[in-house]
C-alpha cells in the first residue's frame, strides 16, 4: 500500500549531509518524560534536549484510523440506509465522525517525538501508551514514505530502519513532507556523528552483473542438484500416490473426474517445490569479490546474484537430511542480516536465497565453509554430548544432542533424522537465554539459547545446570570480546 515517494521537487539526499554543529550530549541526566501526564512543558528545555518535543501532524490519527473508519462506515451502510432511514443514518455517521475527531484530538495530544541526548523518543497511543527510545547510533537508514492516503494532504511518514534486517520497526507518522525531509536530514546528521553506525551503508549491490566477473571458486554439479531434490520426502512418496490414484481408477468405478483432478493437482503441488528448487539452484556458483565478500549466483529462469560480506553472516547451519545420507550429502545455509537478493530484473523475490551450498559432500563443505566463517572446520568441532540422565526427556535424541564453545563460535547439534549443526560466531550473538522446564529441573538440566538476528536461536538442549550457567556467562564474555575485536 505504501509507496516510496520521491517527488521530483523534493530530491532526497541519499548520503548523510555534513555534520551538524557540535552539541554537547548529556545522557546522564534527563527529565522524566514518562508518566500519565505526557507533555513535558516546552517551557523548560533541558540542556540535553537536542530537538524539543514536537507533535505529529494533527491529521495523523485520522489517517491512521481511516481504514478502520471506512470498514465501519461500510458495515453501517450495509442495510443501514434502508433500516434507519436517511435522517438517522446521517445522524449515525455524524456521531461516528465526532467520535473519530475526539479520538484524534486525544491521540494527537499524546503522540509526538523528541531527541534527548543521543536518542530519539517516540510517544504514541491513547489507551496503551508507549514510549519508544531509539538510540541514534542504531539507526541504519531512514526512509521518507508517502502512502497513497497521505499524499493529498502533503504528509509523509518517516521509516526508521534500526535492525538493518529489512524491517522498519519505528515509523514516525505523519509529518508534512518538508518537515519529514528536514527531520530525516537532521537525524542522519546526528546519527553519523558517531562513527559506529554510518547511515545508509546497507551494502545492497544490484549492479553485480555489470562488474567484471571474477573466477568461480566452486560450482555445484547440476546433476547433484537434481538428484538431491529427488531424494526428498515429497518426491519419494509421489510414486505411491500415483499408484494409489491409478488403483482407484482401475478398481473403483465411482471415482469421479473431480477427485482425479484434485489428486493430480495435489501431486503437482508436492513435486512443485522440489522442481522450483532445482530451477532456483541451477548453475550454483560461488565466487569471491575482491573485497573478501562472497558472491553467490544461481538460478535457471531467474538468475540471482547475491553478495554476502562475512561480517553480515549471523549464523551457519549444516543439515544432513535422512535421505541424503546414503550419498553422504549435506547442505549449508546462512542467516544473513539485511539480506536482499535481487533478481536479474531487479525484482525482489521470495525464493530460497539462504543457501551457501544447496548440496555438497563433507569435503566440499570443509573447503567452502571457511570462506563464509574463516577458521571453521565442521568436522573438527569439539562438542560435548548431553549427560546420561537426559534420556528421560530425549530417549533417542540423546545420542545426537551435542554442543560446545569452540574457538570462534558456539555450535550445537540436534535432530535425530534430519541432523542439523548450527554455528553462531561469538561476535554475532545478540542475547543469551537459559530456560529450565519443570522436568528438566528435576533432572538438573537446562537449555541454553543463543539468539541471533534473522534466524531461529541456536539451542543447546538438556545441558547440566551448572554447565548451562557457566556457558551463559562465558558466551556473554566471549561475545563481548569478539565484538570488541571486530570494531
Amino acid at each position: 500500500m505504501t509507496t516510496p515517494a520521491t517527488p521530483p521537487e523534493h530530491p532526497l539526499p541519499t548520503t548523510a549531509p555534513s555534520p551538524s554543529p557540535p552539541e554537547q550530549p548529556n545522557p546522564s541526566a534527563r527529565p522524566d518524560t514518562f508518566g500519565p501526564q505526557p507533555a513535558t512543558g516546552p517551557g523548560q528545555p533541558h540542556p540535553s534536549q537536542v530537538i524539543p518535543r514536537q507533535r505529529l501532524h494533527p491529521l495523523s490519527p485520522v489517517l491512521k484510523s481511516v481504514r478502520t473508519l471506512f470498514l465501519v462506515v461500510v458495515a453501517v451502510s450495509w442495510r443501514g440506509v434502508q433500516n434507519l432511514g436517511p435522517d438517522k443514518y446521517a445522524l449515525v455517521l455524524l456521531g461516528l465522525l465526532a467520535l473519530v475527531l475526539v479520538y484524534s484530538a486525544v491521540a494527537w495530544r499524546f503522540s509526538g517525538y523528541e531527541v534527548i541526548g543521543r536518542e530519539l523518543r517516540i510517544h504514541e497511543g491513547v489507551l496503551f501508551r508507549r514510549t519508544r527510545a531509539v538510540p541514534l547510533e542504531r539507526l541504519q537508514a531512514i526512509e521518507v514514505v508517502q502512502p497513497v492516503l497521505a499524499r493529498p494532504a502533503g504528509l509523509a511518514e518517516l521509516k526508521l530502519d534500526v535492525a538493518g534486517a529489512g524491517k522498519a520497526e519505528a515509523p514516525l507518522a505523519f509529518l508534512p513532507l518538508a518537515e519529514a525531509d528536514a527531520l530525516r536530514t537532521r537525524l542522519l546528521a546526528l546519527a553519523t556523528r558517531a562513527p559506529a553506525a554510518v547511515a545508509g551503508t546497507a551494502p545492497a549491490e544490484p549492479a553485480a552483473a555489470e562488474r567484471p566477473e571474477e573466477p568461480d571458486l566452486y560450482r555445484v554439479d547440476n546433476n547433484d542438484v537434481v538428484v538431491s531434490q529427488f531424494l526428498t520426502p515429497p518426491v519419494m512418496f509421489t510414486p505411491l500416490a500415483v499408484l494409489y490414484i491409478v488403483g482407484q481408477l482401475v478398481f473403483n468405478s465411482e471415482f469421479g473426474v473431480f477427485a482425479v483432478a484434485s489428486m493430480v493437482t495435489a501431486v503437482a503441488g508436492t513435486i512443485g517445490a522440489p522442481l522450483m528448487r532445482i530451477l532456483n539452484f541451477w548453475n550454483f556458483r560461488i565466487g569471491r569479490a575482491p573485497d573478501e565478500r562472497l558472491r553467490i549466483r544461481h538460478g535457471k529462469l531467474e538468475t540471482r546474484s547475491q553478495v554476502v560480506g562475512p561480517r553480515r553472516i549471523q549464523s551457519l547451519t549444516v543439515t544432513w537430511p535422512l535421505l541424503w545420507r546414503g550419498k553422504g550429502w549435506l547442505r549449508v545455509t546462512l542467516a544473513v542480516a539485511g539480506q536482499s537478493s535481487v533478481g536479474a530484473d531487479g525484482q525482489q523475490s521470495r525464493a530460497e536465497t539462504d543457501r551457501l551450498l544447496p548440496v555438497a559432500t563433507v569435503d566440499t563443505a570443509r573447503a567452502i565453509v571457511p570462506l563464509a566463517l574463516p577458521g571453521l572446520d565442521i568436522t573438527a568441532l569439539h562438542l560435548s554430548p548431553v549427560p546420561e540422565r537426559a534420556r528421560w526427556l530425549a530417549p533417542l535424541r540423546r545420542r545426537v544432542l551435542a554442543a560446545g564453545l569452540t574457538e570462534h563460535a558456539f555450535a550445537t547439534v540436534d535432530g535425530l533424522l534430519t541432523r542439523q549443526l548450527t554455528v553462531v560466531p561469538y561476535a554475532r550473538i545478540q542475547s543469551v537465554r537459559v530456560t529450565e522446564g519443570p522436568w528438566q529441573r528435576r533432572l538438573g538440566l537446562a537449555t541454553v539459547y543463543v539468539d541471533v538476528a534473522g534466524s531461529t536461536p541456536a539451542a543447546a538442549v538438556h545441558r547440566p545446570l551448572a554447565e548451562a550457567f557457566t556457558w551463559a556467562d562465558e558466551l556473554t564474555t566471549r561475545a563481548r570480546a569478539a565484538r570488541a575485536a571486530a570494531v
Partner: protein
Amino acid sequence: MTDPRLEAPLPTAARSALDPWPGELTWRPVSSRLVALELTRVAISTALMLAVCAVIWFFTSSGWALFAAVAVLVLTAVRGVVAVRAARSYGYAERERDLLVRHGRMVRHLSIVPYARMQYVDVVAGPLERGFGLATVQLHTAAAASDATIPGLDPAEAARLRDRLAALGEDAGEGL
C-alpha cells in the same frame, strides 16, 4: 503466599534459572503491585466468563451453565495462584555490560541481553497498568527471539531504567 525460596538466600548448591550466580548479583524485584495487577486481570476475565454463564443460564436455565460457572471458579483459583507466583518471580539485575531478566516458576527463564546489542527500548503502559501506577520496559535486539521484558515497574523506575539502558547502549556496538 510467601515463597521461602525467593525470600531466603539460596544455598550455593541450589542454583536455578532464578538465581544462577548466587551472591554475585543483586536482583531487583518488580513492584509488589504487579501481583495485584495480575489478580485484577484474572478477576476481569473471570467476571466476563461468569457473565457469559449467567446470560446462558438466564435464557436456557440449563444446568450446564451452572456447571460451567463452577469450572470457571476452579480455573480462576488455579490461574490466581499461577499469576501470583509468576508475578513474584520477576526480577532483573543490571550488570556492567548486560541486563539480566529472570521470570517464571514452572519454566524458569533467564535472559542476558548485552547493552551493546540493544536496538531500542519501549516503555509501555496499558490502561490497567496505569491504573496501578505501573509500566513495562521492553528491550529489543536485532534477534526476534530475544526476550527481555520487565513488567510491573514504577513509572519513575521505568524511566530511569530506560535512560540508563539507552545511555549504556550508546557506548559501543553496531547492533548487528
